[in-house]
């Protein structure tokens, strides 16, 4: 499947949850399949921390650049683009095409950098709603995402209850735990204390806080994998013929994390990383309801599919069950899968016959 990334420009200012106003913005997106005449088959796919609008397929001029959820989305796949019109979008604040810290601030003519506002899940959903308007989609057949993407799928059902028929919420949490926030804070501290960060205004200085980004990615990556998955993949295997008795990479896992960190620091923007982790930290739809998630979901009208993975310790199954409980309290139509997969949080991106069969069955029952 050959796809072409597109951009939609919005010139009406977007008021953000923080009170700041984004005077104008662009959303990068891709579409797969055809919108039917009734406009009833659109599915919005929301991405997690380091992904983009490139959900599926590949580019004509870059055939190796395959979308991050290509195993899930495409012709004949569980989210079947022969039947559904699927939209991948990149959230604002990202560094992959939508307006973000690397974009030009119209007020100064220079990159936003540190001045780009802190954006939230609610802001992303509000921006996505503008994209839906632009594409002529009044109501989505489904909004779907994993991890941070799942928060967007949840928020859609709260911000625009009438515009979502199904909310598919995978590897989610209704709010970050203290431990989750703690990991994010270590990542942020790694970035902001990097001497090349310059308070977020490093674009002018022609440097990148590579060391900070590297460590941020390393610590993040640890939370995406289960203990068992790491042990299975690396064990205590050595990179060298024997222990070095120095501080080089003795073990495979060290070398792997260094490699992941190095790779990440070449393509990801530090200002974006700070903002995304804040968006995660701030998300808490129950906060306005005295912490009562059931009250928060009282306005939801969608049907829900909630999926967790038993080895996910970042957003554990128990967190998904909190969402299920809140939905049951509101008598929403909901199904819940707790898939006994070993890989940890990352399982939501990986092939698993049970996971895929379940999603295929669920999508199969969405009437168009």
């Amino acid at each position: 499947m050959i796809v072409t990334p597109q951009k939609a420009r919005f010139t009406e200012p977007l008021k953000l949850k923080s009170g700041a106003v984004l005077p104008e913005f662009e959303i990068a997106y891709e579409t797969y399949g055809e919108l039917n005449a009734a406009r009833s088959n659109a599915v919005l796919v929301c991405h997690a921390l380091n992904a983009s609008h490139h959900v599926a397929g590949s580019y004509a001029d870059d055939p190796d650049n395959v979308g991050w959820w290509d195993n899930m989305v495409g012709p004949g796949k569980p989210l079947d683009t022969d039947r559904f019109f699927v939209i991948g979008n990149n959230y604002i604040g990202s560094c992959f095409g939508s307006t973000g810290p690397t974009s030009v601030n119209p007020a100064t003519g220079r990159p936003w950098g540190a001045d780009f506002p802190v954006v939230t899940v609610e802001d992303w959903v509000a921006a996505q709603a503008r994209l839906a308007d632009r594409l002529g989609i009044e109501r989505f057949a489904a909004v779907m995402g994993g991890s941070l993407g799942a928060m967007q799928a949840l928020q859609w059902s709260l911000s625009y209850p009438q515009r979502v028929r199904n909310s598919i919420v995978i590897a989610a949490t209704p709010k970050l735990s203290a431990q989750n926030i703690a990991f994010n804070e270590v990542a942020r501290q790694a970035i902001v204390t990097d001497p090349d960060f310059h308070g977020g205004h490093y674009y002018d200085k022609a440097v990148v806080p590579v060391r900070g980004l590297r460590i941020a990615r390393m610590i993040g990556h640890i939370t995406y994998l289960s203990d068992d998955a790491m042990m299975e993949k690396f064990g205590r295997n050595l990179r060298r013929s024997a222990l070095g008795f120095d501080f080089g990479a003795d073990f495979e896992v060290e070398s792997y994390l260094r490699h992941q960190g190095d790779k990440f620091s070449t393509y990801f923007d530090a200002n974006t990383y700070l903002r995304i982790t804040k968006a995660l930290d701030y998300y808490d739809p129950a906060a306005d309801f005295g912490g009562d998630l059931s009250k928060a979901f009282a306005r939801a009208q969608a049907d829900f599919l909630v999926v967790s993975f038993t080895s996910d310790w970042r957003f554990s199954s128990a967190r998904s069950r909190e969402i299920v409980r809140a939905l049951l309290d509101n008598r929403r139509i909901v199904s819940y899968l707790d898939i006994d997969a070993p890989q940890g949080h990352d399982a939501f991106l990986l092939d698993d016959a049970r996971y895929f069969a379940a999603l295929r069955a669920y999508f199969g029952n969405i009437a168009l």
Partner: protein
Amino acid sequence: MTELETIARWVAPGARVLDLGCGDGRLLQHLWKTRQAPGYGVEIDDAKVTACLKNDVNVLQMDLEDGLAAFADRSFDTAILSETLQAIHRQEPLLREMLRVSREAIVSFPNFGYWRARIQIALAGHMPVSKELPYQWYDTPNVHHCTLIDFEALCAKLGFRVLERVVLTGGKPVSLLPNLLGSLAAYRVSA
């Protein structure tokens, strides 16, 4: 009369139903079609969960042994435990939970006091194997068998009221010597 029909007759039109150990969701599908009773199934087996989704039945993949914490007090009209009681490790807490989350409970199970089972133990000297209990003793999901008398004693201990009882053999109601002649029992109980 089948077990399915027995249970369906006990579910009021439009009642909210929770089916514990719902398998492929056939009962819930039947209750929706015949009684317009919406519900949720709880099932742990991956293939059965997927079958429920295919059958367009709301299914929650959870372990009944962990209790019913996902459900609020009195959030259902009827909680059903159909031929699953014998596969549960801790029956007492689950039965209590059923009548916490629901006004009424329907419980059905294969009767271990059925004469064919008794004969297999008493005369042949081996654990019963039958249409209702098709497993060998070393390869069975069933861990706690009981008879009608046993179950009614447990209901009494838990303070449950038995509202109705139907005993079946080969799809036919049994009224004479049910604990001996019935292969399957279904109870409707309340707290």
